[in-house]
């Protein structure tokens, strides 16, 4: 290898690096707060270069599904944008198509998100249709039944994937009887029980302005938006919600194996993470990057894929719900490698807990997490949905423009080592395994 050339590249690279990030945030984020006459508030990022806008609407504090009607929240959101007002499915879908509107709604465990992309020339009609969806969705029988069949098809396909089953098993066993452990999309039995009235009722109760957050990005001015906010959201009810969630106990450990006829074994592993409210949260986030979220640069990818060729991909995620925080990973590997992979994961976990990362790893992860942030904001749709995601967690504008970067920048190697010791607990790992042969590590 030509050392000279390598050095030149580094030099060049460092020079760019220093000029690099100083000018980014200001250009990438100019977030305004728009408040309508009736007090409905939204974040707005104006961009008039393309005659398009996107809107992301979130509703927080969604209650758990009733145990006998699992999948209700998801099912309800799958049907809500099918038909509304005086238009049945075909008429409504035709209208969306004619006006070039992309519209989708979904519910997670904690939040509902509705996302829209439309054309400036049909701006007012687009907001009218959104209003109809929010306050006058039809939930026609035919639409409910068709969607129900799509759920059945989804459940059948889920059973074809070892990775999906391993992941469902992990949630189910780790969260025990807590609602987070129940399948978000329900099961064939519970979906069969859900009625049209249930779906309507869910939408009516949960599309609640008190828990609503709105982000709009694109070709729209603050005054135009203010008028449209009233027109679109004014009819939604305002009610105090009661949270029905318990805080789960997260202490399941060990290994669970389920047989399946496949050539590979799927493995899901993890344990509790760190709460977003905890001052160590951001340190944990950076450590997760070093362990498994940083693509090729991460330790697990290096060890298990690059060095040993044991998988096509392995990754971890630092995952937060309102009432639980996880450090979760997954991969698939040839069945005969299962024990070896589990051992390698445990070893890496142990090493990270004992020694923490190196200064070089920490620096790399920090600059990556700072530098990659603006890439989330490259079109109106991704910008609206990324900003809504941050709002739903409770972050403010200052977090987006400055605070996030500062929180990452100030992490020291000592912080990282201290939190690594706290976070990476080899003996707390819980593994679920789905594949053709039972690994020896499963007793």
């Amino acid at each position, binding site marked *: *290898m*030509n050392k000279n050339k*390598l050095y030149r*590249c580094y030099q*060049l*690279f460092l020079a*760019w690096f220093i*000029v*690099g990030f100083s000018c*980014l945030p200001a*250009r*990438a984020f100019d977030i305004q707060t728009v408040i309508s006459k009736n007090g409905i508030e939204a974040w707005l990022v104006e961009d008039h*270069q*393309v*005659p*398009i806008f996107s809107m992301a609407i979130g509703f927080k504090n969604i209650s758990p599904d009733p145990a006998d009607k699992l999948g209700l929240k998801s099912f309800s959101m799958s049907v809500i944008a099918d038909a509304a007002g005086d238009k049945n*499915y*075909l008429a409504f*879908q*035709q209208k969306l*198509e*004619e006006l*070039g509107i*992309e519209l989708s709604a979904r519910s997670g465990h904690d939040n509902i998100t509705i996302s829209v*992309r439309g*054309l400036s020339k049909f701006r007012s009609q687009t907001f009218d249709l959104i209003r109809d969806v929010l306050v006058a969705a039809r939930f026609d029988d*035919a639409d409910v039944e*068709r969607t129900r*069949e*799509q759920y*059945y*098809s989804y459940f059948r396909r889920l*059973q*074809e*994937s*070892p990775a999906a089953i391993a992941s469902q098993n992990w949630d189910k066993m780790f969260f025990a009887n807590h609602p987070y452990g129940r399948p978000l999309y329900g099961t064939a039995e519970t979906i069969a029980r859900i009625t049209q009235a249930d779906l309507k009722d869910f939408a009516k109760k949960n599309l609640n302005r008190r828990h609503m957050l709105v982000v709009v990005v694109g070709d729209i001015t603050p005054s135009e938006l203010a008028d449209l906010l009233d027109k679109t959201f004014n009819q939604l009810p305002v009610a105090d919600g009661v949270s029905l969630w318990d805080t789960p106990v997260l202490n399941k450990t060990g290994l669970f194996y389920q047989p399946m*006829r496949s*050539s*590979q074994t799927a493995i899901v592993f993890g344990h509790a993470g760190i709460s977003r409210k905890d001052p160590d949260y951001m340190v944990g986030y950076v450590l997760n990057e070093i362990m498994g979220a*940083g*693509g*090729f*640069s991460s330790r697990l990818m*290096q060890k298990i*894929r*690059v060095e*040993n*060729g*044991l998988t*096509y991909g392995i990754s971890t995620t630092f995952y937060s719900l309102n009432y639980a925080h996880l450090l979760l990973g997954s991969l*698939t590997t*040839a069945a005969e490698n299962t024990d070896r992979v589990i051992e390698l994961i445990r070893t890496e976990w142990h090493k990270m807990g004992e020694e923490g990362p190196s200064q070089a790893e920490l620096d790399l992860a920090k*600059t*990556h997490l700072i530098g*990659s*942030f*603006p*890439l989330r904001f*490259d*079109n109106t749709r991704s910008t609206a949905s990324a900003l809504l995601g941050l709002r739903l967690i409770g972050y403010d504008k200052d977090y987006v423009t400055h605070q996030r970067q500062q929180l990452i920048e100030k992490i020291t190697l000592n912080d990282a080592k201290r939190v690594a010791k706290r976070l990476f607990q080899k003996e707390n790992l819980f593994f679920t395994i789905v594949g053709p042969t039972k690994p020896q590590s499963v007793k």
Partner: protein
Amino acid sequence: MTRILLRLGRLVSIFCLVFTGQSVLAQTVSNPTPLDFQIETFVLSNGLQVVVMPSNRAPIVTQMLLYRVGSADEESGKSGLAHFLEHLLFKATKNYPVGFYDQQIHRVGGQMNAFTTQDYTVYHQTVASNFLELIMQLEADRMENLIIEEPGFSAEKQVVREEIRQNHIDPPSSQLYSMMQAVLFLHHPYGRPVIGWDHEVNQLTAQDALEFYQRWYAPNNAILMIIGDVKTDQVRLLANKYYGHIPAKSNLEPLNRLSDPPLNMPRRIDFNSDKNQDFRWQRFYKIEFAKKTDSIPAELLAEILGGNSNSRFYKRLVIEDKLASSVSAYLDTSYRDYAVFSIYVTALRRENYDKIEQIINQEIDAIKNTPVTQEEIQRAQTSVDNAIIKSRDDLTNLGEYVLIGLATGWQLNDLQTWSTKMRMIDAKTIQLHAQQFLKLENAVTGTLSPKLTVE
């Protein structure tokens, strides 16, 4: 369905581009109207074609480097080599050690990936625009300086074989897809999977990969696309600086791919798998267009038959007869030598296959016998017009579409006039296309069902 709209959108959106001519010296377009995109192209002296789509909406830039080589260019018996080589490009070069490339891009917050198809291989990175020079330098370096060595080669082979297991052996739908492609293309190399057959991948050597690299990776066999917050002059400067010195290869032989004989009979595969749970019915038609632009009426035909929830198939199978939970049809024009018109149906149950097939055949006969309505054409054209505007929100997708078009035989000005041509298409043309191309003797029909167990 969204996929189809998106595809249509991406294709027609080329209409908005302002094209300045495929000359060595590009001219900058002045005063683009709000609906226009700039696209500029020039060719380096070593034959590298450079295409630039500038936009300053976000301080981000994407580089895509496409080599005009894919799995259809592999020697028989060495399936999977093009894709395997793609993996190896993320290893060492003469100048930089293993891991250097990823680390540099990772450090600046960038994203990178690559993909291989039958006809081309694409490497791409997205970074803050300040780092354009870095990614151009790294990409140019691996155009000429790749090193393939142990133990990286053997480990990477295992990675590829895990990829085959994960995405092609275990999912039953992938198995059906591979088999249908193999039967649709009996002789042409499109009949073998891009990722390769596992037993052949297992035999590939470092020497195979190196020879393939040395033969095909050259500036005069590549297209460089830069999209985003850049100026064309800056790109020209950097392209010359980093790619300009790489010698052209004179031994790039014209690709001599086998072509299929006329098959003259419908084929079918019914696959009952114990790994499978759902009920799928699907059909692929192989289409050979005399010229690329002949595909335009067939795109509208796909839209009218199965492009959305108001399409003929969807109304019949999902809404009226309730035999299926979803159906879609689309035309894949991203191949160089053929196009594939495909129909995918998710049946509610196994017993519905016969009726589904009957209705699909009826609807296709109907469109052959009676011209589609003016309203249907109008609707398809409107949705395409809307998609044109929306495609401008995702410039990287648009750029990728132009790039793939150029690599599969489209001329830039044909892409540019796509939408004008699309608007002139009448019911008669669509009818003729249905008659000419949707013939059962050019098609393979497949079903995928759970294994029937005898208790």
